[in-house]
């Protein structure tokens, strides 16, 4: 177990380092000069050169990368070029909002997705099932920003049930979380449905029936725990989707998370911030997957950590 954990952590670290390299190369290729963004309009060409020198932007690529990597290993993500604040601090102030949104969205999508999936599977090929599956198709197909704007329009502007964007209370988190979780609810309901159907067809369910167990017990004790297994791995992968969704949803709802930070940073080639945000989201994705892999054996005794 611990050897496994160590190896997985090591692999994850390698992946993250790989990501720093890819991002760094990409940003190196972006045809925009951060020094000019910093220098401002009144700057002379010499000043810009000077700033480039100071930031080491004139150094060869690998030297720059090496410098970044060594600093990163010491926990230093650098300073924002434009805000002059520690990237770690900028992220730290925004991460809680994003995490809150993410957790709320995961709860939303699981609550909806799993319930819908189970109900649809148990009412397979009945009108209820068809209705729910059409709903899930729609939710998979709907662009997040349209859903976001629609929810905002209907529930905040027209009905006034929720605040129109912003951050702070529970009411604030509802619409963004639903928007973000909407897509996931569709996926999960479909996966859960086929998973439940799969499990329902398995021999041990027949055994449970042959034992004379009640329907509720069969579903709760035998079907659901088995049906949920394939879903666990999905939750890990999901984090990646969230990271993408968050940029959009945060911009629609004015949610002060790292999606907005990333968007602004990309607009203005604030390289340390872009790197930082990429690292944080990649870490979240990697950790999510790792966590899913670590949780799986706890739920499923058959899986050995290898």
């Amino acid at each position, binding site marked *: 177990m611990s050897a496994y954990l160590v190896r997985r952590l090591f692999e994850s670290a*390698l*992946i*993250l380092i*790989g*990501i720093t390299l*890819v*991002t760094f190369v*990409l*940003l190196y*290729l*972006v*045809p*925009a000069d951060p020094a000019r963004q910093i220098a401002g309009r009144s700057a002379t060409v010499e000043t810009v050169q000077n700033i480039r020198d100071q930031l080491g932007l004139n150094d060869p690529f690998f030297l720059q990368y090496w410098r970044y990597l060594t600093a990163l290993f010491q926990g230093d993500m650098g300073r924002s070029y434009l805000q002059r604040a520690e990237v770690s601090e900028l992220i730290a102030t925004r991460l809680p909002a994003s995490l809150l949104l993410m957790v709320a969205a995961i709860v939303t999508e699981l609550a909806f997705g799993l319930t819908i999936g189970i109900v649809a599977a148990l009412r397979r*090929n009945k009108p209820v099932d068809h209705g729910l599956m*059409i709903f899930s*198709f*729609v939710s*998979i*197909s*709907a*662009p*997040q*920003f*349209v859903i976001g*704007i*629609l929810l*905002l*329009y209907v529930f905040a*502007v027209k009905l006034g049930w929720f605040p129109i964007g912003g951050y702070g209370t529970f009411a604030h988190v509802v619409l963004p979380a639903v928007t973000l979780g909407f897509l996931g609810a569709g996926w999960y309901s479909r996966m859960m449905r086929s998973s439940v*159907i799969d499990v329902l067809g398995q021999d041990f369910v027949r055994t449970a029936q042959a034992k004379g167990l009640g329907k509720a017990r069969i579903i709760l004790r035998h079907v659901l725990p088995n049906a949920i297994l394939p879903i666990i791995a999905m939750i890990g*992968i999901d984090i*990646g*989707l969230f*990271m*993408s*969704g968050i*940029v*959009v949803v945060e*911009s629609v709802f004015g949610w002060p998370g790292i999606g907005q930070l*990333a*968007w602004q940073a*990309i607009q203005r080639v604030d390289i340390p911030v*872009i790197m930082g*945000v*990429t690292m944080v*989201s*990649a870490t979240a*994705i*990697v950790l999510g*997957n790792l966590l899913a892999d670590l949780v799986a054996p706890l739920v499923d005794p058959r899986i050995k950590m290898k």
Partner: protein
Amino acid sequence: MLQDLLTRPRAAFGLFIIVLMVGAAVFAPWIMPHDPFEQSFDGLSLVGAPLPPGGDFLLGTDLLGRDLASRLILGTRTSLIIGVLANGIAILLGAGVGITAGYFGGWVGAILMRFTDLMMAFPALLLAIVLAAIFQPSLLIVALVIAMVNWVQMARVIYTETRSLAERDFITVQRALGAGHLRILLKHLLPHLLSSIVVFGTLGISTTVLLEATLSFLGVGVQPPMPSWGNIIFENQTYFSTAPWLVFIPGSAILLLALAFNLVGDALRDILDPTLKGRH
């Protein structure tokens, strides 16, 4: 297969929508009621507000006074071209990597799959935005960028499937018969992977259309004035409360297209996968 699709109401509906949209894209010049680029003087109210649906402009006008219906019809082209192009590239890349890694395994496979893992961990949208910033967006670049983001899942799916197929008896038999790699790959593996590729392909088109819309929504997609459903929304989104039709009509178009491909893809999965026969 077509017959199979048509007998399923949902898939038939999806197919119908797709045919409709392809038709709209192909015949756009003939069916557009107005010039989609013309910023018509009559297209704006006196104070410069867009016109709501109805009247001369069937679906209303956008903030520049252009006919929304015409722009939507022309936007079908963009969405479909991107969908097909990006998805095609993603499939080639993803299936190529997946099959190679899955069939040959060894260190080549290990390196390919580690790379795939790495790309998995990359926040996809960030990657797309950064790529879009490096290469000035054009239809082809946008398609490439989306393909870059989307091939990963394809590779994963195909890899897993190739791995399990490669273990199957009928492939072992081929090896025992002395068949070369190329023959095994093309004649035996590929036909079995084809259903996944087709299914993933159709589902991928919907993801692609959505991603293009998102990129356009963030302002890094297809270049104006070429309409794409995403950038129509992008240009007009802040007006959603005063001119909701500008957001929700193109939004519904995206939804409908993605829905159509999802429905067809899902039905194809059932039709092409014999183990799923009879339980949809």
